[in-house]
């Protein structure tokens, strides 16, 4: 079984996010970029499936600038077999990402596509579902456990009220939640080995996909600062306020 994993290069989750003073976006100058943490979980899951003998080959795909090669090499050092970079400068909206991935899927013909459930920059949480729709494949989103059973894939999904198990016929799209696994550390020798693994590049034009934006970001602002509210004099007053004013209990 062949698995395809999509990874995105994002501003590192530890970086301090600063909104540009002119409101045009986030100042990403000289910020550290890393593999999207949810995608890292997706890669780890594919590697574990390979180690368990369920998957025979792992292809990692990224869509982004030339520097996204670093992200792909990271995924290869974790255990991916080969990589494909679709080179695009600037933001690509999830629908266009899904279309690019569909094109890659059509040529690679994997049985399983694993993605992170969302990227921590745009926080869209769309690409996996869109890709599944475009391919007409079933989807197992927000996965916290995978198990193969009778030729089908059982996915435990994290839902608001607990967990849900769905069974999917392959091929299918899975999006990873953080509890699916804890990604391994890459080791220096594996970084060296990963360097020899093939990394192909292509472009949206070659794949025949229009990546023109459908949305326009008019401005980006820092979130509104919370203001201090009121001090209450007693517990009874607090409960009364929560009941009658805030209406949260």
């Amino acid at each position, binding site marked *: 079984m062949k698995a395809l994993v999509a990874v995105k290069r994002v501003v590192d989750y530890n970086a301090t996010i600063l909104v540009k003073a002119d409101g045009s976006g986030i100042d990403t100058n000289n910020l550290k970029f890393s593999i999207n943490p949810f995608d890292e979980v997706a890669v780890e899951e594919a590697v574990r499936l390979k180690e368990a003998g369920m998957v025979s080959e792992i292809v990692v795909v990224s869509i982004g600038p030339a520097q996204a090669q670093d992200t792909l090499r990271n995924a290869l050092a974790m255990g991916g077999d080969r990589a494909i970079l679709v080179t695009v400068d600037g933001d690509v909206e999830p629908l266009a990402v899904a279309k690019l991935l569909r094109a890659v899927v059509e040529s690679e013909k994997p049985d399983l596509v694993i993605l992170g459930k969302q990227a921590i920059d745009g926080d869209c949480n769309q690409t996996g579902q869109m890709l599944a729709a475009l391919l007409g494949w079933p989807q197992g989103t927000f996965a916290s456990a995978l198990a193969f059973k009778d030729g089908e894939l059982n996915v435990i999904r994290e839902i608001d009220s607990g967990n849900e198990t769905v069974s999917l016929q392959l091929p299918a799209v899975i999006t990873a939640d953080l509890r699916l696994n804890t990604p391994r550390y890459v080791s220096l*020798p594996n970084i*060296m080995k990963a*360097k020899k693994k093939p990394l192909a590049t292509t472009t949206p034009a070659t794949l025949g996909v229009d990546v023109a934006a459908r949305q326009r970001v008019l401005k980006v602002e820092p979130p509104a600062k919370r203001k201090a509210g009121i001090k209450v004099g007693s517990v009874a007053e607090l409960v009364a306020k929560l009941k009658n004013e805030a209406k949260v209990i």
Partner: protein
Amino acid sequence: MGRSIHWPAGINRAYRLILCIGDRTGKLMERESMEFDVVIVGGGPSGLSAAIRLRQLAAASGRELSVCVVEKGAELGAHILSGAVMEPRALDELLPDWQAKGAPLTVACADDNFIFLTERRAVGLMAPPQMNNHGNYIVSLGNVVRWLGVQAEEAGVEVFPGFAAAEVLYDPSGAVRGVATGDMGIGKDGKPTENHTPGVELLAKQTIFAEGVRGSLTKSLISRLHLDKDCNPQTYGIGIKELWEVDPSQHRPGRIEHTVGWPLDRETYGGSFLYHLDNNQVAVGYVVGLDYKNPYLSPFEEFQRFKTHPAVRRIFESGRRLSYGARALAEGGFQSIPRLTFPGGLLVGDTAGFLNVPKIKGIHTAMKSGMVAAEAIFAALEKPASGALEVTAYPAMLKASWVWKELYLSRNIRPSFHWGLWGGILYSALDTYLFRGRAPWTLKVHSDHDQLRDARDSVPIAYPKPDNTLTFDRLSSVFLSGAVHEENQPCHLQLKDPSIALTVNLARYDSPEQRYCPAAVYEIVTEAGDNSSHLHISASNCLHCKSCDIKDPTQNINWVVPEGGGGPNYPNM
């Protein structure tokens, strides 16, 4: 969450698998080893300059030479913090076409201002000639290092950020044969977690230690090999820096201001720097000599208070703070330079202490020391060696270079401030204008940790509360540094004897680590129930400045590297 890695370009090396006994867990653990010609510990200006020079020499002579750099920061530049005004002298020699290659040296120094502050007034002083910055650049050293990293990778250097060299490896003869990176995935309890990944042995014909000020491996080397037996102790300062975006009306690209005086007392060495970069950014910081005497002194709060001076506050009042960080500086200079070589390795850059204090510059000397070391190593490796190699040509070549002359001529300035601010300024003027650095004597440098007076003989300092626009508390500052560590790991701030934290630090000095640590790592916590106290160490706040390792009165705090990738994540610092 595992660390991501920055991908180096360049050549491949063979690796092999060896078995060794796990030191922390006692169980058999696989630790692989990789061999290089030269391994460099630390991806700062000196380490990268050495790496680039080695590959340049190899390319020029057509020799194969493998060079590996390990860096504990999550990426190159992540742990780099400096003012910084950079003298491009060494860079001109290393990469003469740096301008064409897009080096981030874009803001030429315009005007120098040396100012004496009283609480309300600012008096311009004549800037000493060492502070003349004509031809220099105001830079983010972190960004310069990121750029140097790209040059190094293009030159074929293997750069591995996110990997901390945790251990020096010695051969049976006692010569250094390389370093080992730390294990990843060791829990708080010292036991391997499910993601445990053993460290790797990086073996080399020469290991260059380029760890920056007070390197933890360098410290162990100095102690084991007595590298400091013929020099004065090293003396340090703590530099705390913020990066601000200011109102365009307050921005003067290229402007440099240095102050002495208020808010520091006259017996304490220190002062401020304020550099106008581009994009309405201003770097502002404060340096306090770690030989300060009053245990109640707080370098962090002195810096915060400094910003409230009428001449300073107007610059920042309508701005916003972008980043924060801190790092120790080696101020001992010429007298404190230890033996630089030993069988199997050598020291370059600030871990050896090449800062020129009166110039307040050490980037150019650090880079030059790395380049000279590279040239010496390259020549030495040409000859077939039997046994471990000590590259004694390096100190000899360094002595013949401009680095040595610079440091020699400025050697008496910093120690003269032992006579207080005015004594120091007076002596420095005499030394500079009359003796021109060639006074027939050399003043002694003393260590810092034994300088504190007892708390009961000291006057507590009442620092104003932060206003959260101009001045801030430590925790909200650390937040801006991007400091993060894997929480489930052994504490990397080790107390040799935990009881001393209370019996000496608290009892005699009122726990000064609570005040000199710029990251709120140390806190005396008193239990509500029985009123007992203990020292709480929030190691994950640590900015890797090394002040605790330096200033702790009984040297009871030992700073060791945490899991690779941990620490601050400075952008544009």
